[in-house]
């Protein structure tokens, strides 16, 4: 189509005048629509700008809620702290096959996250003051001193004979025994210390000789 090509400038101006009211009306409608679009765009942009803040607020609320509800897994350094953490789930196993004596409740190790609780529980159930650590080579063979004798022993007495020799048991009594690394280290890396920070031994130390550590209460 070449309809516009034959129009002289005068006629074009005349016809533009004819079209002007309608053209202006159309342009105003277009501009009105443009303003609406810009306004909607601004609103959407402002909403998007709030999203990071809303996200941060939600994250902060979640973090606060988590902190409030998070159980205190910190390892206590005193027996009173251990007693205070009795709400921590416990895994208590009682060795009924080879009891040391009638008053002894053997709690098998290794213990994860619940050593303080076990200690506290032992204290509550047996109403005793002393908690002892018992080093044995295995569950089935327990010979040697009685728990009463063990009370008098020093922590340095924690020695286990090599497997080639006759299995022995050394019971070491120490008050307020806690596992300082419980909750952060597990298995063979665990260290057992007295409250004076003396390392009693680990499952990998030579004097333990791969023996099991057991908590026993009188």
């Amino acid at each position, binding site marked *: *189509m*070449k*309809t516009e090509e*034959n*129009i*002289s400038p*005068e*006629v074009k101006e*005349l*016809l*533009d*005048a*004819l*079209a*002007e*009211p*309608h*053209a*202006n009306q*159309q*342009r*105003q409608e*277009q*501009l*009105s629509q*443009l*303003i*609406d679009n*810009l*306004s909607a765009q601004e609103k959407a942009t402002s909403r998007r700008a709030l999203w990071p803040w809303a996200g941060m607020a939600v994250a902060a609320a979640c973090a606060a809620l988590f902190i409030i509800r998070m159980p205190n897994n910190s390892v206590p350094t005193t027996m009173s702290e251990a007693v205070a953490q009795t709400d921590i789930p416990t895994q208590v196993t009682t060795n009924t096959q080879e009891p040391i004596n009638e008053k002894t409740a053997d709690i098998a190790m290794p213990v994860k996250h619940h050593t303080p609780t076990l200690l506290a529980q032992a204290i509550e159930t047996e109403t005793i003051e002393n908690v002892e650590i018992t080093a044995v080579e295995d569950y089935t063979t327990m010979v040697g001193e009685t728990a009463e004798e063990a009370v008098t022993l020093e922590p340095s007495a924690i020695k286990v004979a090599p497997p080639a020799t006759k299995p022995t048991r050394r019971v070491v009594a120490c008050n307020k025994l806690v596992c300082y690394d419980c909750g952060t280290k597990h298995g063979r890396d665990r260290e057992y210390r007295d409250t004076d920070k003396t390392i009693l031994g680990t499952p990998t130390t030579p004097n333990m000789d791969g023996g099991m550590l057991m908590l026993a209460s009188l």
Partner: protein
Amino acid sequence: MTPDTFKQTILNLQPDMQRYAKVLLGDADAAADAVQDAVIDMWQHRERLENVVNVKGYCITMVKRRCIDQLRNMHPSIPIDEETLQLADPPPDDTEERFLRALRLVERLPQRQREAILLKYQQGKENKEIERIMKMSSTHLYATLSRAYSTLREMMQESE
């Protein structure tokens, strides 16, 4: 400023801005672009409008700046006519007068030519739509419009 307030304040001045831009740019479409750019600019800085006393003058100034930008982009080597830029107000609104004059001339055209011209210019319809409404081919429409342009030119020369 809400969109409705802005529309009432600014868009009512669109014909003035359009005429002013057309005088500067010499083209209706380029003028419409300049007006649109100016309106967008004013919307984005609409908080300034609340302190403006002479809104019409403010709008004309905004359009003028846009027109200068366009002229510089279109003809970077040609100096801008400073006299034209000194124009403070849009040309007088003779839209209605020119419209009535054009309408009087168009009404003297033959019926088919008049209908084609009014559909195309007064109602702003596209050629395809006019062909459908008037049930004529594109060639026929082209010939009809050409005859109408020729007749109008003759009538304008007679009236002068």
